[in-house]
């Protein structure tokens, strides 16, 4: 029982962390161009 008292909050906290991470990524537009992001990694950055 005593272990549950801290294990459950820890589990919920980690879950909530993941959830808020996802919501943040959604809001900051990271899901708007999934294909573009995949291709952009191939572009060499200009020296400029």
């Amino acid at each position: 029982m005593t272990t549950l008292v801290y294990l459950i909050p820890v589990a919920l906290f980690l879950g909530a962390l993941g959830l808020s991470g996802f919501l943040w990524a959604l809001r900051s537009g990271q899901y708007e161009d999934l294909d573009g992001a995949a291709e952009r990694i191939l572009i060499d950055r200009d020296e400029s």
Partner: protein
Amino acid sequence: MSCCAPGAEMALDLGGATSSLPSSQEIRLASRSLDDDLRQTDLSVPTVHCAACIQAIETALGKLDRVERARVNLSTKRVSVQWRGNEAPPIVAALELLGYPAHLFDPEIHEKDKTLSELIRAVAVAGFAAGNIMLLSVSVWSGAEGATRDLFHWVSALIAIPALAFAGGIYFRSAWNALRHGRMNMDVPIAVGVSLAYAMSLYETINHGDHAYFDASVSLLFFLLIGRTLDHVMRERARTAVNGLSRLAARGAMVLREDGSRDYLPVEEIEPGLQLLVTAGERIPVDGKIIQGSSDLDCSLVSGESTPRTVSSGETVQAGTLNLTGPLIIEATAAAKDSFLAEMVRLMEAAEGGRAHYRRIADRVSALYAPVVHLTALVTFLGWMAATGDWHQAVTIAIAVLIITCPCALGLAVPIVQVVAARRLFESGVMVKDGSAMERLAAIDTAVFDKTGTLTLGQPRLVNASSIDPAMLAIAGDMAVHSRHPFSMAIAGAAGFAAQPKLESVSEHPGFGIEATAMGSTWRLGRRGWAGWKARTAGESGYGGTVLTKDGIIVASFVFEDALRSDARAAVEQLNNARVPVEMLSGDTAAACGEVAATLGIHHFVPALLPSGKVVYIETLAKDGHKVLMVGDGLNDTPALGAAHVSIAPATAADVGRKAADFVFLRESLSAVPLALDISRKAGRLIRQNIAIAIVYNTIAVPIAILGHVTPLIAAIAMSASSLLVIGNALRLQGFAASSPETVGTRGKRSTAGALARSS
């Protein structure tokens, strides 16, 4: 661009009817202001495909003057450019130079999609809650007791609150909306079931009971939201693809003021009496009268006539026709809101009838389902009250009945099949506006086609190329590239560009043809009477009588026909085999219609119809009890598209037509129509199967629930199992649609389809 080969094909399909590049004034009109000086323009660029394309576009645009920032979105195939100043930088021209044709689209559709982000957030929250509650429930099922069980129940109750408020809100609002208007939809039993389950579980938790249904109510929401989100994503993707097509109506026009100054005004601000300059390649913005200049007009989108009309000063012109060869000065005789285009939109709105009365299968089923379920729960409650007198037990069992019958499978049964079907169609280049369109298409028993632009391409094709002296054809081809008259384009397409011998002083005479000098002779390509001024004798007169002359002597004559859309004949045959008789309505002459009908094997056609005539024809068919499919592309077809039970338009259709149609196909091939019909019918069959599965599941589960044997564990297993069964059945569509004979012809385009499906 070698890496982008599949993209080029797509561009070809889309680019059939594009006019000249939008002017910088038009770009400015379509841009939106970010702050006082900065403006943003969004362009649709259907051919971007890979990292190299992104880099090429972004660096080229970034180098332009006054461009602040250019960013490519590969998923939506769009470029957004931010720029400063009063005049737009030459963005489209720069893209054209790189080999990426771009076009503007309506700015108002750029509004952020609020529904989608709300749905995705709701799915995330419901998923989080469902996962955690399920973990706690598993420990309860595996034997947690006493204070531990109560603790788990309390934690579950807490987690469920945000899920119900946030994710459930979507269902509560929709259910409330339906009830308020005295209707019933699938969301009503869902909302009732979920909230009663939560309330009962809370009561149990407070009273240290054994059974709580928090897991059932939240995972139900989670499953249903997934179906709803997929459905939305699919429709959104189709909408984006359709909106990304080039705009065919004029956005504005160059106004010539009396003091000689020029102004570019949006179409809505043009008033009768203003003088407008329409250059070759532009569309006529409003109805008007020509006061200066002569040209050829392509009326195919407006009236269905396939041959361009020669016009000169004094004649009236209709909004929406394309000016092909020479600049015109016209005087507006009507404002945009009174022009032909607006008239068509009004006719369409008046005709909108067939689909407004249509009720979706899911709604029809739930209108029966919900009362039955709620009545069963009530009877169960009364029965247990009468039998035991224990109201707590009676309520518990009645709510268990509600939970087990909650239409999880039913709520998924329809959208999942439609999502899979829409995906199959998307891969074949057919966009579906919404699920009800597929249900309606499955029910049709008559197909009505427009001729010009739908059964035919609306572009002439040179038929006698093989019987013309190749040297003459080469000269004609070199001359023809200087004109955008459809006949010229056909000749240029057949001849290719040889540049041998060299032409000098090429000039176009609007309404007549092209004149050039080469090898010391004067060559004319055009109307027989004009080009062959020395040969007045009537020779063989082909389609339009277009000839090539050398110093006035006819050296070659060209015969054209309106090219049929590829697979048109096969499509008509397949529709006939599917027991859908095909008819043809056209604004063109009887002779032109008869020829096309004979080639395609269409037995019934009506020529020379006005737009309202098409509507009347379709309404008569509908009154006789027929469910009519209308396939058309022109402005004059738009009212008919609205009047029909369901409608399909090609990507080259007029803007309003594309908006009015339920399906839009992007490829040239007409086989899209039987394919859409085939898949819609298969989807309809699967939907009925899925509903049957859901009902069978209920007839087994409900007696168990009524007898009071349902625990939360059994409810969770039963619900998941039925949902998986329904989803699995829906996925079969992917399998047997792929093996059906209709798709064999489109195999070659697989690469494009795959790329398109992946990318949006």
